[in-house]
């Protein structure tokens, strides 16, 4: 796990009130207990942490170019946005 992944996992785990070490890349965010407010809070924290803007609209969670279904998909999305930023 690299630094970027660790930071994203820490943010998601904090919102889900879980130990970061217990999260797996395949974990479904809804099943981790992240509700809609938790998700937007996590996205806010990710934007603040990485200085990026995440294209996510709660009305169309599946329509954007940012997959929030699993821990791994969020990490991959953040990685792409960070690369595009740099």
């Amino acid at each position, binding site marked *: 796990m690299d630094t970027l992944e660790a930071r994203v996992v820490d943010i998601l785990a904090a919102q889900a009130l879980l130990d970061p070490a217990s999260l797996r890349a395949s974990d479904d965010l809804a099943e981790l207990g992240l509700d809609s*407010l*938790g998700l*937007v*809070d996590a*996205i*806010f924290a990710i*934007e*603040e942490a990485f200085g990026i*803007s995440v294209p996510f609209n709660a009305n169309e969670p599946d329509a954007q170019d940012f997959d929030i279904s699993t821990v791994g998909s969020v990490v991959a999305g953040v990685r792409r946005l960070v690369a595009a930023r740099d």
Partner: protein
Amino acid sequence: MPRVVLTGAGTVNALAHDVPGTLAALAAGQSGIGPLDIRDAGRLTIRIGAQVKGWPGLPGMTAREAALWDPFTRFAIAAADQAVAMSGLAPADLAAAGVILGTAAGGISTWEDNYRAVFAEGKDRVPPLVVPRLMQNAAPAHVSIRHGLRGPSFSVSSACASASHAIGLAFRDIREGRARVILAGGAEAMLVFGGIKAWEGLRVLSPDGCRPFDADRNGMVMGEGAAVFVLEDADHAAARGARALAEIAGFGMTSDAGDIVAPSAEGAAAAMHLALTDAGMQPGDLGYVNAHGTGTLANDRAEAQALRAVLGAGAAAVPVSSTKGAHGHAIGATGALELLACIAALRDGVLVPTTGCRVVAPDMGLDVVTETARHAQPGAALSNSFAFGGTNAVLALRAV
């Protein structure tokens, strides 16, 4: 028609963080007014207020709740928790209950903090919970969620009359049979830089203290906090053995339809008349009036004129006090805080003093309770609230 009684009360304000402490402080003539301890106080012209200090906050508040609850919501929740606990209401009664709370500024500190972030600090994003945190109905919403109240929940905003309007609406709903239990009151947390700076502009704030009806009064002093009451159908309360603090017997509301800020004695008097008529009372029944009594030149003069018109020849025989020199002018919460003084009068036989008033201005023509509390057993009382917008809300209460 059902009678409506108060079976629970709670408060957080500058005097104390509960009802017994507040009643004791009011009776003792204490004042919660002091130097403001807020961000950028040094840039304010007015640097005093009745600020809630030393309050430990809500026990067990989670990080998510802290992110969601503006200070005005926290005050409301604390007051509602106390009121529900005092009432002893069962979950089934609470499930059928509603909550109506007054506020003028809602989550103003949330507006302020986030405007600072985006305007002053150049940030391009704000936390996701800003909207549900600052909305005016955040306070009743969280009281509803916390206590499982599934009846109506909404906020009322009529500046300095907000809480009295909220309590009056709740009273009417119960008396007219639409509900048996409603929580009502007000919450305000406007003691932030922008809130005070805005009031400074009106030139109605005193730089040195609140002295209602005093010959030397020179303005109002802002306060903050909340008071929430459980209003209940009297038969419902009696059937479950609940003790009533007092009865709300009538409510009157009018508008001046005149100036946006200058008070009108006629509008105020009309609201008092309506409240008395609604309660089936005569002016001579009144043994106490809790005045709006802001300590401004204009309010106190107009209110005294209105009281003289309503009370007629008996005006000099009805004790009147204002408690704004004690808890400050808590704006949208103030009518609820002041109802506590009516409970002191009707339940405890204590007419609390007008803290800050030493020498009553000669043109008042009222029996203002000054310096120390008086002991009497009034059977009925009025609580006056008047507001910018020319809106007037008056509650009539009876001892039980």
